[in-house]
């Protein structure tokens, strides 16, 4: 399923909404999650999962081609952990 299919499904189920409103709803949903993580916040969606930000410490990396050492800065990366209900549903336990 891709973004446009998700929008279409919701639009089909909600004929009283304009398609462009459904698009805005879906965009707002995903943009809000990214914005929260960009502020260093967690987003916890019970039953589905939680988005959080993990810190990767600075380290000395190596250019695999030349073998040269390079300093890699500390960075923050997005992380998702599946919620219990969804994990159980994936394994026919719910």
């Amino acid at each position, binding site marked *: *399923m891709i973004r446009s299919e*998700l929008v279409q499904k*919701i639009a089909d189920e909600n004929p009283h909404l304009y398609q462009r409103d459904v698009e805005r709803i879906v965009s707002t949903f995903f943009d809000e999650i990214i914005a929260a993580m960009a502020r260093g916040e*967690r987003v916890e969606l019970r*039953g589905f999962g939680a988005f959080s930000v993990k810190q990767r410490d600075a380290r000395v990396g190596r250019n695999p081609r030349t073998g040269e050492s390079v300093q890699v800065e500390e960075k*923050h990366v*997005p992380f998702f952990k599946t919620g219990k209900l969804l994990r159980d549903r*994936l394994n026919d336990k719910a």
Partner: protein
Amino acid sequence: MSEKTLTRMDLSEAVFREVGLSRNESAQLVETVLQYMSDALVDGEQVKISSFGTFSVREKTARIGRNPKTGEEVPIHPRRVLTFRPSHLMKERVAAGNRS
């Protein structure tokens, strides 16, 4: 790092502000988004949200695990796990926003 945690409520509040539906309907729609994504994943489908990321279901085979406390061997049954691969946009925005 901030301790703040957003929930469904914050997302439906954002939908309420952006789209101007009732609070109740906004909450319902947030639920619908999560429901459709979950259902697709449970059906084994990949969910690919452009400029957000991709959720995919992976099959894990059975293996012998070990209780790290007791050292006891325990069988781990074959199972399906969900993985999320963030988009470049998400990675960039998260990296930029948290730069010290």
